[in-house]
């Protein structure tokens, strides 16, 4: 199974509620997975967000750059492309930032893309089966996503019950040097 990453939104050092929902979604893909959180930003707020995640994520990747003090999807996409291993599964909340970031990220990673996922039915071989709504929610659809070359998946906020892991002393890995300078 591919390694699973969750991209974390935060504001003023407080991690978005979706952080723990994405962790739950990751475990629906692979119950044995220890997903890795990725947080981008700058300064004390970034450090506070990383600290907040340590209790729930075994590993958090920190990408610090002054250019990311305010989240810019294009710059963050460039940063993620530099650090994500090939064939990764990346989960992002389906809200304004995720809609900006995720489709283009899937192109740059050459991976599959599924948006606004409500549930995860499971994995069979290289196929991840997810549930989406269509036509204003009048019907739902099972969608098969080929994850053999990775996937970027946006997850509807509120769809998964937040999962705060048992208290762990997660580590924070600083990936900033791998990203280098970021320019538009």
């Amino acid at each position: 199974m591919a390694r699973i990453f969750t991209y974390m939104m935060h504001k003023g050092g407080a991690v978005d509620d979706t952080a723990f929902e994405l962790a739950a979604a990751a475990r629906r893909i692979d119950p044995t997975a220890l997903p890795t959180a990725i947080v981008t930003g700058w300064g004390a707020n970034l450090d506070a967000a990383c600290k907040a995640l340590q209790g729930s994520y075994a590993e958090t990747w920190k990408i610090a750059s002054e250019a990311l003090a305010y989240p810019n999807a294009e710059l963050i996409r460039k940063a993620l492309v530099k650090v994500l291993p090939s064939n990764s599964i990346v989960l992002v909340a389906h809200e304004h930032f995720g809609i900006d970031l995720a489709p283009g990220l899937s192109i740059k990673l050459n991976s599959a893309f599924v948006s606004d996922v409500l549930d995860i039915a499971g994995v069979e071989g290289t196929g991840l089966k997810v549930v989406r709504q269509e036509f204003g929610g009048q019907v739902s659809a099972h969608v098969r996503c080929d994850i053999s070359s990775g996937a970027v998946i946006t997850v509807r906020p509120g769809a998964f019950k937040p999962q705060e892991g048992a208290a762990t002393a997660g580590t924070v890995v600083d990936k900033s040097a791998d990203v280098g300078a970021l320019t538009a």
Partner: protein
Amino acid sequence: MEILVCVRRVPDTSENEIQLNSAGDDIERDDLVYSINEADNYAVEEALQIVARVGGNVTVATVGGEDDEEVLRREMAMGASHGVLITDDAFSGSDGRGIATILKAFVQKGNYDLILTGIQAEDGGAQVGGMLAALLDYPFASLVNSIEVLDGKKLKVSREIEGGNKEISEIDLPCVLSIQTGINEPRYVGMKGIRAVASIPIPTFGVSNLGLEPSAVGEAAAKVKRVDYFVPALGKGAEILHGTREENIDKVLELVAAKGGLK
């Protein structure tokens, strides 16, 4: 300014009760009323308003079949200068990436300053605009709810973000924007306008004149495929409070506190 608007013809959810077919692998499509995807219509209106301010042309394009000419003509009746049908059997079964690949090939045949899409199709996933921008290496902004042309090279756009707030940015041209519904008030299209464009030839593009490899699009290339449709189980529904206003306020506070919402 040369503006391309990518549009789609979709079942109109305000006119149809969507039902499953007997096999459960698709919706029942025989008697559906189709129309232009709502967000795409706002995108066309926005393009027309920009051209009215700064000059230029609006081209509308769709990937589909003969039936989809209907929405191209509707948008031409609104004021779009050109309509283009991108059609080929090889495109059938394309996923979002496939559609974006097809549109990229079409964009590269022209000289567009600005490409607009609707934020999301009724059966789509808010994906093609962002994918198209990444394939073209153009800047991208989604959920755009206002556009101001600063000069020939930049736009000032605002995006809808959480809490009803707006994020305002400058973005270099050429770029791709996905348009939020409500950005404007799309103009009415009357029968006279439809008749006026009814006989205008609509050029078509396919695999060969777009220079695409058939293996790069269509079902074979799709990494994402719909397996089936189903009707979601009904939830418990909302609890309706029937007391006086004061009783209901107390009950709401009690319920919120019980869920940990009040400390």
